[in-house]
């Protein structure tokens, strides 16, 4: 009997390519005659370019061209609403004018035959500016008009609550810092553009290039089979993608442009810094009555970037009164972008810290307090939950983590120089689904090729889609090949917001179901088939063989079926069109952390963590576990290490490198464990998944922050928590 592939702990189907160095990331693709481009970034944050002296650079042997606004052609820059460009504002138009909007803005690009000459040339371009004093500090800068939400009368309710808390939390700007730098190779063949790019959305990049260059969508092809991590930074086509294509057109050769690590800090987005004031009211038993959220976040002067920072305040806990004000603050910086768990991560840090503060204030166990405020329905819209098993996450988590060993009083456990503490936090991420398509081809050998224009930045799209297809087609995993990352493939939404498995997976399921049914119809209607005349509903396919469900001996293989019919292939297009849902659907998680804090040196060490998730069906348990652990590691970074630091005098980012923008290293990461509640959410989508990539990251930083409080008795309301804050 063939085992089901979905739910089986398979190794990655692309594992071999990755461990042998054969997986091709953006800058790895060979292109005949390729030349190299290096961007020159502005050294001021605001002002106008008054001169560009390219003589020294142009004189270098090997330098082919130096491009700036002085000699670049005007580009179409059509509007492109079907992208992740912010709705409000005007995207950066490279080399189209003399304005400098942020430090590091591309002001020129040097194209040369070797990387060495290009980089040297870039260091020789002299740009002069008429500089103005930039505004880059969120603190104190004026905000734009707020987005608001209200139910009940939260201000009144907080004012009259038996217990009131008021806190301001701050979170630092974080950069995605995937290990693969953004890179683009661009090649024109006449009027047709081919681009190998690091992107989470080949279709999005295709649309943007078509809009920028004013060419037909069909004239642009974007290829991206492997993405070396992205965490959101690949959801938009950044200026350098345009620059690579522009340079390739101007020099008439393929151009490779790889951003330096330093350039990533201004050349791509980031999780904006926040100032978040929260007032809450509750009764003495810890029942929340109201929350008032005043939120301020960074954005750029030219685009209004907003993310979903409001959802958690509306739906995580039950309370009659909520008021939210979300303001963005335009600064002379580049535009932020979604970063893993966008908005939710920040909101969860604030809310989950505040709830922990309330629990401490009232002397109630933090888990118990959360249970008391568990909503019965989605109070933001009155919808029932399809599944919401947060209580179970708490129960399982508390049991497996040994929560009962936690002394209620903070600062009560000490081992030598170390103060030990436990903390936990909840997180939720609304399930996102969007239309998707997938092509399924079964060939005469009985093997299947499934393809969709999605991507795999690490969670394992290749593997999970293969598993879904294998089961739906009744094939062994090795008889299925899944391909992705080419804009010529059937359209899918962006590979972000944890929607890939739900959306693309449902399209794959649909396509494979259709194909299987098509084969079965062919067989039962075929006199020469052993299945002739059998009710199609009674036919199953397993291990590549169609047979009567109750009589496995009676049947035949796909191969025989196709051969007999002289068909080289069967082909279908799978579709997923999410309808209006009557349910509120989200993935949930509870994260537990135990930390040690050196009582004299202020150093925080995470000792262990556990995450328990209600994420619907888990297609690939082995890969899901890696993803959850990775989410925790990212959370350790956000809680304790990560911050992009700007010198507000001139807007210089002072730690734009991996030696001083600190992400966790191996030594920072102890034993981590993930548990997935078994089950599926049939209302979520046809395959019952709720999304995983975001929720595993969302409650991590507050769990650690709460553990630090429990260890030390000191509440730090700012991320990352540094040694100086704990001394």
């Amino acid at each position, binding site marked *: 009997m063939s085992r089901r592939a979905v739910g089986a702990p398979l190794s990655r189907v692309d594992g071999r390519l990755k461990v*042998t*160095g054969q997986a091709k990331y953006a800058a790895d693709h060979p292109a005949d005659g390729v030349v190299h481009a290096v961007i020159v970034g502005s050294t001021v944050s605001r002002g106008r370019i008054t001169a560009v002296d390219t003589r020294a650079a142009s004189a270098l042997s090997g330098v082919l061209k130096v491009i700036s606004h002085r000699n670049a052609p005007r580009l179409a820059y059509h509007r492109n609403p079907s992208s992740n460009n912010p709705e409000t504002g005007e995207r950066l138009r490279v080399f189209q004018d003399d304005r400098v909007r942020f430090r590091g803005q591309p002001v020129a690009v040097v194209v040369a035959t070797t990387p060495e000459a290009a980089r040297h040339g870039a260091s020789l371009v002299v740009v002069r500016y008429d500089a103005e004093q930039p505004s880059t500090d969120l603190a104190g800068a004026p905000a734009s008009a707020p987005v608001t939400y209200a139910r009940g009368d939260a201000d009144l309710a907080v004012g009259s609550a038996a217990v009131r808390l008021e806190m301001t939390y701050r979170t630092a700007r974080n950069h995605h*810092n995937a290990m693969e730098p953004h890179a683009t190779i661009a090649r024109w063949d006449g009027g047709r553009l081919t681009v190998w790019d690091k992107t989470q959305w080949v279709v999005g990049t295709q649309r943007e290039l078509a809009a920028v260059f004013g060419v037909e969508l069909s004239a642009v092809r974007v290829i991206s089979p492997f993405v070396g991590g992205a965490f959101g930074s690949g959801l938009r086509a950044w200026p350098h993608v345009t620059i690579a294509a522009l340079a390739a057109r101007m020099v008439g050769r393929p151009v490779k442009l790889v951003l330096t690590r330093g350039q990533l800090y201004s050349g791509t987005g980031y999780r904006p810094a926040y100032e978040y004031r929260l007032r809450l009211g509750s009764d003495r038993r810890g029942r929340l009555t109201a929350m008032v959220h005043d939120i301020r976040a960074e954005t750029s002067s030219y685009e209004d970037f907003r993310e979903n920072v409001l959802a958690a305040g509306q739906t995580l806990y039950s309370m009659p009164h909520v008021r939210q004000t979300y303001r963005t603050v335009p600064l002379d910086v580049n535009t932020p972008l979604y970063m893993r768990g966008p908005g939710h991560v920040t909101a969860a840090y604030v809310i989950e810290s505040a709830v922990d503060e309330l629990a401490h204030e009232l002397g109630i166990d933090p888990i118990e307090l959360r249970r008391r405020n568990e909503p019965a329905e989605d109070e933001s819209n009155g919808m029932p939950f399809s599944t919401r098993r947060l209580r179970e996450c708490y129960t399982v988590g508390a049991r497996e983590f040994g929560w009962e060993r936690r002394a209620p009083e903070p600062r009560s456990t000490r081992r030598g120089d170390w103060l030990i503490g436990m903390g936990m936090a909840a997180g939720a991420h609304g399930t996102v689904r969007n239309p998707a398509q997938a092509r399924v081809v079964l060939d005469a050998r009985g093997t299947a090729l499934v393809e969709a224009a999605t991507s795999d930045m690490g969670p394992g799209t290749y593997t999970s889609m293969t598993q879904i297809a294998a089961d739906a087609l009744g094939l062994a995993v090795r008889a299925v090949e899944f391909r992705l990352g080419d804009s010529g493939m059937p359209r899918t939404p962006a590979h972000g917001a944890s929607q890939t498995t739900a959306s693309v997976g449902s399209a794959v399921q649909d396509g494979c179901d259709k194909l299987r049914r098509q084969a079965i119809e062919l067989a039962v209607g075929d006199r020469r088939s052993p299945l002739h005349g059998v009710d199609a509903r009674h036919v199953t396919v397993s291990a590549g063989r169609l047979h009567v469900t109750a009589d496995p001996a009676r049947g035949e293989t796909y191969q025989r079926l196709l051969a007999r019919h002289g068909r080289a292939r069967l082909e279908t297009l799978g579709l997923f069109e999410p309808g209006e849902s009557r349910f509120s659907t989200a993935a949930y998680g509870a994260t537990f952390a135990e930390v040690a804090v050196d009582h004299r040196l202020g150093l925080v060490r995470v000792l262990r963590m556990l995450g328990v998730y209600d994420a619907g069906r888990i297609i690939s348990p082995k890969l899901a576990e890696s993803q959850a652990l990775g989410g925790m590691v990212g959370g350790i970074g956000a809680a304790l290490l990560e911050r992009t630091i700007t010198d507000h005098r001139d807007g210089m980012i002072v730690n734009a490198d991996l030696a001083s923008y600190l992400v966790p290293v191996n030594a920072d990461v102890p034993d981590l464990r993930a548990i997935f509640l078994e089950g599926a959410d049939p209302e979520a989508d046809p395959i019952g998944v709720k999304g995983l990539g975001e929720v595993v990251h969302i409650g991590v930083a507050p769990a650690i922050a709460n553990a630090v409080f429990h260890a030390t008795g000191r509440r730090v309301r700012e991320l990352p928590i540094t040694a100086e804050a704990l001394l």
Partner: protein
Amino acid sequence: MASEPPGSRVPLGAEPASLFSRRTFIATATAVTVGGVAVASDVVPEPSPQATGAPVSGRVSLVVNGEGRTATIDNRTSLLDLLRERFGLTGTKKGCDAGACGACTVLVDGRRVNACLTLAVRLEGAEVTTIEGLAPGGDDELHPLQQAFIEQDAFQCGYCTPGQIMSGIGCIQEGHTRSPGEIREWMSGNICRCGCYVNIVKAVEQAAGTT
């Protein structure tokens, strides 16, 4: 394929005086006393290669994954760029180009090093092993650590993986695998932003037990 740098010498272009303050190099001659000896604090002005006519490129012969290779290279070329841009061995990755991530880790004469900070011109006669050299047969046989990485799911995006594996081989050879804690410390020169550390440690442990 990547193009050859033109000619065997890359002449310097004229550099504008405004950009190159020679002040860095030509300090005023003051005298300070060190250990009773008067020391002039000026630095000899550095002659430009152009002025001396010294070549800024050279030939290097080295062995990469068991295969002898000779190339004429710009002196500035890093081993990393030599592998990637000239030899087409793109398995070795660039994460920072500054020694701060470990993605470029390869073995040079058996030791793990950062290829981004290694000037290729220094490698005359050296033996370099990259990820492509571990399972050269193309048959099913993988290096035990490659196999362990797959079995333990010690990666997600896979970008840091070649560096992790080469570093892990170094770590095992050095004998720094006596405990998970020791592996963590000695594998800390390889950042994995996907956060696969727990499984990387398991994979190194597994391979250390079998090699």
